[in-house]
């Protein structure tokens, strides 16, 4: 029956939540732990200590040059100025309330079923108008030694929003290493598809596999980001492990998850939701409070984890006008929604 729901595996108890202060200070605590380890070495005494400490330092600096993708555990990353004043969405909401229809259409389905997807090892097929094409291991596409954190707003087309600390690399830095040619006017992305591992794909909710795309100048914009982690750790499968797009000025469905193919193309590529309902989902899909979805208004949004009885005013380009508005100068954004 439908009236009783068993607590989901991801539904932690309130008491289990790490106190905010402790969470905020986690890096200091880690650093302190590291210092303690060094002190421990010093405790061993003698010249041997100095040697082993410097050996450790050398080892860690080479590792930082080109680190392999960690199977699990925390990521090392630099902090950046990309942030918003609003509070972060609690991690249990970020990882427990997802649209990833490949695992089911209920928001709690991805957290329940996405573990069935195998993400290690992972490779990405690169094709189209580029100097370097072929199949690349994830570690050769994303430089795990150059990770940074960006706190972005996420605005879903369903009129809810989150604030998420992503870990990853700028998309431009990834695309440039494939040396796209002048014919590469768009970049297309494709999500992994395995009907056994992704139970939601057994029903034609969408025309699988999920595909998305950006105009090249959009992809090269400073905000476009390729995430491999969130909240300091590797991406949970339900959030699009091991690598996903994050384009915060567009509705969430543009930020395609679990990418297995990147294609440099000359024509505007097809996109999954546009194919399903062209009048509702355009190619650009920029957040625009003035262009209502045919079935609901886009002027306000419900902040997940926020006050239930308050809605946030949705901003043009989700508040990122300064960085992206110039990309659309002279365009009718109602027509080109």
């Amino acid at each position, binding site marked *: 029956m*439908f*009236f*009783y*729901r068993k*607590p989901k595996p991801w*539904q932690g*108890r*309130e008491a289990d939540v790490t106190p905010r202060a402790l969470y905020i200070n986690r890096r200091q605590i880690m650093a302190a732990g590291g210092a303690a380890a060094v002190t421990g070495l010093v405790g061993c005494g003698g010249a041997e200590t100095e040697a082993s400490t410097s050996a450790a330092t050398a080892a860690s600096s080479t590792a930082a040059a080109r680190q392999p993708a960690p199977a699990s555990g925390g990521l090392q990353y630099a902090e950046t100025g990309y942030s918003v004043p609003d509070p972060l969405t609690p991690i*249990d*909401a970020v990882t*427990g*309330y997802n649209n990833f*229809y490949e695992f089911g*259409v209920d*928001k*709690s389905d991805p957290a329940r079923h996405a573990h069935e997807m195998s993400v290690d090892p992972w490779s990405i097929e690169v094709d189209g108008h580029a100097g370097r094409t072929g199949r690349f291991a994830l570690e050769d596409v994303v430089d795990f030694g150059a990770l940074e954190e960006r706190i972005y707003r996420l605005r879903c087309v*369903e009129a*809810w929003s989150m604030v998420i600390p992503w870990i990853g690399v700028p998309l431009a830095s990834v695309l440039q290493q494939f040396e796209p040619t002048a014919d590469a006017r768009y970049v297309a992305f494709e999500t992994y598809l395995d009907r056994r591992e992704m139970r939601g794909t057994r*029903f*034609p*909710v*969408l025309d699988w596999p999920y595909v998305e795309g950006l105009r090249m100048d959009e992809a090269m914009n400073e905000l476009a980001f390729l995430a491999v982690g969130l909240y300091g750790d590797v991406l949970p499968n339900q959030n699009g492990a091991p690598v996903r797009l994050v384009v915060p000025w567009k509705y969430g469905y543009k930020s395609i998850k679990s990418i297995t193919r990147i294609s440099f193309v000359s024509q505007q590529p097809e996109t999954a*939701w546009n194919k*399903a*309902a062209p009048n509702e989902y355009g190619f650009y899909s920029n957040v625009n409070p003035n262009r*209502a979805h*045919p*079935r*609901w*208004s886009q*002027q*306000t949004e*419900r902040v*997940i*984890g926020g006050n*239930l*009885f*308050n*809605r946030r005013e949705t901003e043009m380009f989700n508040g990122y006008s300064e960085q992206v508005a110039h990309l659309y100068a002279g365009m009718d954004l109602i027509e080109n929604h």
Partner: protein
Amino acid sequence: MAKRAVLRSFGRHWLKPLTFWLLALPGLWLGWQWAMLLNGQPHALGFNPIETTHRFLGDTALRILLISLAVTPFRDITRWLPIMKVRRRIGLAAFWYALLHVAAYLGLDLLIAANMSIAGMFAGLWEDIAKRIYITLGMAAFVGLIPLAITSFNAMVRWLGARRWQRLHWAIYPIAILAVLHHGFMEKGNQPMPWIHGGILALLLGYRLVRSARNRSRPSPAAS
């Protein structure tokens, strides 16, 4: 023959109260979860309690409506007559959940979006009905349920007379179709649930078509 007699009286005393409490259970559960939520306790409404509430009330109303349509076929198959005594009660419960569904939409969506202005809420309602096809369909279904709910009391049945009452309540068939379409047009993409609800409804309506065709083909139609 003895078996028939047992079936005719089985459940005579407990069927009505049992049905009442079963039908009230989803509402009590939802109320309890909201009480937990508002008191900061762990609850089962997920990370978007308002969306959960809309879906829960809508699903409950539609499924109870489908159950009410399944009562007559169930009686025909099992010959368990007392079940007919709770059919109106089940249909009325579908109305109450639909009413809660509409109230939640007005109060938790439109009123908040309009910054608690009642005029703004009705302006939003009118805009939604005029512009958004799934709201239009859902509202039509709800408005259609109102006269059926009002005439669901014994006094009203007597006042209308069985024949007119039955003719009026025939409206439940188009209303059920509207409700399924409302669900289907609300979802993004091609989702399985509306097809499942629609398939069950098609079976229930198909059963009636076949039965009435069969009754008509008989020389002297049996009273039913």
